[in-house]
């Protein structure tokens, strides 16, 4: 029998993403105690915000938001958790594969880079979604705080655009990690900008004037403004179109650039012979 010269039919992109998802799920399940701890973390964090809201009371800065500081902070948590998901997933994946020695093996297979990236995103995204659902359920069950379903549905496209922007920044981080192995500046800058400048935990109006101007350059500012207006201000879809357009513009610029950056970083590591280093 002569060995085949034509390779077998190629698995579909979805087949490959499914395989990566099953792999990640199996590995995550093997760390089940971590999942258990996440549940407790959610309870205590939500409770902390609840009691913090008692301290803050009804500040004049929060008057435009229904529900006071507690709901204001919960929307902040929704955006920061989504931003961390986008920012950290890809660089964490590269680091993990480098440590395990599997990065080279994966890159020697006929699976394209965007497929690998998409596949590694599924389980972290599902876990973040479950975690956020848990936070909001705890808020509803224990603290009687409910967000309007229509607001959540209207806000969903905005959240998806937010994720796209932060995933792009996350892919930049991964490109940096391919070259430097440890330490990249993007996650730190973007997460601090989200938490501090964009007003995740306090209204931007509290900041000095020049920082309020800078806040407009942070993508999360538009996510937070849009989501708060639909979830806490009762606004409709039309009122968040501007925010969506800004986020779409960020994504349109960042996403292709980040993929080019990652491709170049891998090409550079192939030249220097540092692909397997960690």
């Amino acid at each position, binding site marked *: *029998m*002569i*060995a*085949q*010269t034509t*390779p*077998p*039919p*190629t*698995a579909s992109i979805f*087949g*490959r993403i*499914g*395989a*990566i998802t*099953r*792999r990640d799920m*199996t*590995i995550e399940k*093997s760390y089940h105690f971590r999942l258990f701890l996440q549940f407790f973390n959610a309870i205590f964090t939500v409770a902390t915000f609840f009691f913090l809201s008692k301290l803050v009371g009804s500040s004049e800065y929060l008057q435009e938001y229904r529900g006071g500081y507690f709901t204001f902070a919960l929307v902040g948590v929704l955006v920061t958790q989504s931003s961390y998901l986008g920012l950290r997933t890809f660089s964490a994946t590269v680091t993990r594969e480098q440590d*395990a*020695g*599997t990065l*080279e*093996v*994966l*890159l*020697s*297979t*006929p*699976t*394209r880079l965007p497929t690998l990236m998409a596949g590694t995103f599924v389980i972290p995204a599902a876990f973040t979604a479950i975690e956020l659902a848990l936070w909001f359920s705890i808020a509803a069950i224990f603290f009687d705080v409910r967000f309007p379903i229509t607001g959540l549905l209207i806000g969903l496209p905005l959240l998806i655009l937010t994720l796209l922007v932060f995933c792009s920044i996350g892919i930049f981080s991964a490109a940096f990690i391919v*070259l*430097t*192995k440890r330490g990249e500046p993007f996650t730190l800058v973007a997460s601090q900008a989200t938490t501090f400048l964009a007003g995740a935990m306090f209204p931007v109006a509290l900041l000095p004037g020049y920082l309020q101007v800078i806040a407009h350059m942070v993508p999360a500012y538009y996510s937070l403004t849009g989501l708060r207006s639909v979830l806490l201000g009762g606004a409709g879809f039309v009122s968040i179109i501007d925010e969506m357009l800004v986020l779409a513009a960020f994504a349109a610029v960042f996403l292709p650039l980040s993929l080019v950056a990652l491709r170049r970083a891998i*090409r550079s590591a*192939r*030249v*220097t*012979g*540092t*692909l*397997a*280093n960690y």
Partner: protein
Amino acid sequence: MLHVDHVTKVYKPPPPLLRPFVRTAVKEPVPALKDVSFQVERGNIVGLVGPNGAGKTTIIRVITTLLTATSGTVTLDDLHVDRDGYEFRRRIGLVLSEDRGLYWRLTGRQNLDFFGVMAGLSRAAAKRRTTELMEEVGLAGRDKLVFGYSAGMRTRLSLARALLIDPPLLVLDEPTRSLDPVATREVGDMLRGLAARGHAVLLSSHRLDEVADVCTKVVALVGGAVRFEGTAAELAADQAGPTEALVRLLTQEPKTA
């Protein structure tokens, strides 16, 4: 089949601007491969031998698209390694020399199922192939998390992974390093079987006896350059025997013109 033509690789330090961020093993340009040329044809097992640092792993990484050569060309049939990387990878099975490269928190089967799909098989085909290969490499009935595998079992699993898509070219970097003599012989038999079925095999090894025994052709690298390229029969014709002939080739000073 596989043609390696005048391949040179020089490891260079990163540009000064990037040096604070990117750490490489070299501070000055280091030539790792010097004008290396050889061919691997279908049905042949070509042994790549040489002392540590001879450039064996470097040329294997170039062939498997993990490293870019400074100059020269590598082609597989009509495919060029730089231009057709994706198609190249669809035709190569790779066994790396490192003990890593597998997911230790997955079982052997789960590893093969996963890499099967990554290599291009459908889920069902990957599962079928996994069952066949677990049997073939002697891991059937011994399926457990890879962190519980011995080094030899991990090597067998890596070998099975390389065979998932039944690739026309198999590239193995010291596959028998962690294997006992019986398992080494089994691997040798398996490679002969693959070659008999028309596969091309490139095998890097420190074990000269293994190379002399299994390979149909030998390429000896010393200091990044090809010191000898010939058939196993030529080595066997040496009065001292093939292994001793190889030792002499690897240790003697190069002939000057």
